[in-house]
């Protein structure tokens, strides 16, 4: 028989080891994904991958230049539609958001951030695609912007609230009107933190696939302008991965490597930005 004290010590060690084990198990998939994506994707990355259009089935070679440009286009549109309203709505919540209306906005943002991205796709389909009668980069950009909006809003609000009130008082004391204090003192001080939040939001939408399936759709060729179906990296990865062709699988891995690098780069940069500057979470 163990003494009660020894038993308690023993339980303590067992549970603590279990927690360490849990952390290790949680990280295994990350390591495995990084390993396989690098190993199987690196072979497909070459100049043609960045400069050529996809080749038809059966022909080897070809690239994903159109999907690469398409993703950049979609992310740019998402930023254009999502960031300015998001930041200003966040400013409203931080500066005037104590009313019942402010609470309702905050609540909507929180609920919206939990809505599945595929339903956002259906929403934008009926909002844009049904009205314009065709799939387009514009619709895809709107879908991604809707996904970004709540994150950007709430991040901006949280970060503005961290700025010391004395800064505002000092600026008001100099005779600046309130709106200029908000824009040029408060918002500027919080800017690095907000940039971090925005980068994380961009990283998230850059990899989104589900809402693009029936908004931006996909396109094996170049799409000109914003009004045509547009290929993107995530949707191309999906289409290639579920296809039966060996050659396309290779392209899917290469595209996944590129997408993963893009997303991880944004994440790491965002964290470094937090660490090195004030006004961050």
């Amino acid at each position, binding site marked *: 028989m163990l003494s009660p004290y020894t038993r308690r010590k023993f339980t303590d060690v067992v549970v603590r080891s279990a927690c360490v084990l849990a952390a290790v198990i949680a990280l295994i998939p990350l390591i495995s994904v990084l390993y396989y994506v690098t190993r199987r994707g690196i072979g497909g990355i070459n100049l043609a991958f960045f400069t050529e259009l996809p080749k038809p089935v059966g022909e080897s070679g070809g690239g994903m230049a159109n999907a690469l440009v398409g993703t950049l286009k979609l992310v740019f549109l998402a930023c254009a539609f999502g960031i300015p309203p998001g930041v200003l*709505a966040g400013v409203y919540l931080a500066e005037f958001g104590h009313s019942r209306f402010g609470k309702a906005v905050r609540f909507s943002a929180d609920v919206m951030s939990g809505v599945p991205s595929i339903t956002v796709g259906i929403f934008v389909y009926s909002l844009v695609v049904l009205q314009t009668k065709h799939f387009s980069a514009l619709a895809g950009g709107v879908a991604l912007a809707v996904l970004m909006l709540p994150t950007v809003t709430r991040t901006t609000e949280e970060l503005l609230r961290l700025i010391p009130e004395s800064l505002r008082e000092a600026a008001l004391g100099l005779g600046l009107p309130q709106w200029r204090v908000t824009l040029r003192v408060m918002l500027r001080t919080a800017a690095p933190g907000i940039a971090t939040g925005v980068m994380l939001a961009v990283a998230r939408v850059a990899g989104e696939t589900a809402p693009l399936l029936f908004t931006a759709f996909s396109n094996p060729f170049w799409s000109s302008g914003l009004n045509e179906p547009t290929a993107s990296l995530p949707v191309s990865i999906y289409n290639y991965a579920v296809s039966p062709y060996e050659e396309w699988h290779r392209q899917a891995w290469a595209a996944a490597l590129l997408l993963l690098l893009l997303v991880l780069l944004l994440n790491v940069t965002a964290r470094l930005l937090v660490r090195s500057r004030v006004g961050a979470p």
Partner: protein
Amino acid sequence: MSVSHEVSPLIRPRSWILTRFGREVNWGDFVFHRLTALLAALLIAALTAMAAAMFHGSAESLSKFGFGFITSRIWDPVRDIYGALPFIYGTIASSFLALCFAVPISLGVAIFLSELAPAWLRGPVGFLVELLAAVPSVVYGLWGIFVLAPWLRETVEPLLARTLGFLPFFQGQQRGFGMLAGGIILAIMITPTISSVSREVLRAVPSALREGALGLGATPWEAVRVAVLPYARSGLVGATILGLGRALGETMAITMVIGNRSEMSASLFAPSYTMASVIANEFSEATGSLYLSALAEVGLLLFVVTVLLNIVARLLVWRVGRLPEGGRL
């Protein structure tokens, strides 16, 4: 920053906008306030429009099938008859399975990060767990098709069939693609959500409770069990529900590994189909308004359930402390 062109308040000409109290208002302030309020209202409008669009889109299916939509097993685009039960079953079963895997692991991670880990390890491990959330869904799906599913087919499923094959859960053909793969993929994707919210909840527990237990001679684990966990319980439940909300709506990764066959089988080896997957697979190819409408109704169900779950989860988490920075969870 130049302020020289600002006129002193004493000699500023009267603005033409007066508030209710007859006080002068700066006209820039007035415009700024209204403009930001308008954009804030955009969020409410977007959510309302989303609900309205989903209801509008599914009106035809709602009126034609009514309540039978969620109890019928027949999904037949050729005869134009739609019942979503297999998808509802697949969604609930895969999410439940994911919670079974993810909750113990996430709680372990959260306790490790907030209570046990040495300070120098918390940052890096926390960062890595968050990177898990940063990997795009479609990349998990790709990995699921070419790494996870073959591994399950060749190693895990034969092993389970040999040892636990007398249970109905571990019988049938071993394909790799199926409910088990779906549950694992979802578990991987919701672990960061549950563990980061749980960690914030545990951090919100006053340290006096912890110190009191330790001062009375409790071991570190006993302090967590008797002092920290009871205080944090509702928040941890909230974290789990947030994870459930994510699992229900997750689309790409699970579509790529669950097999996409609308069967309802007790076996974890059998293929299944989820609500999000059927929308992803069929929406852009759906012909006929009733077909589209039925798919929109599946989306509506998903929308309503996830919205309700999110509301409940947030209320529970708020009871313990405030949400992590950014609020996107």
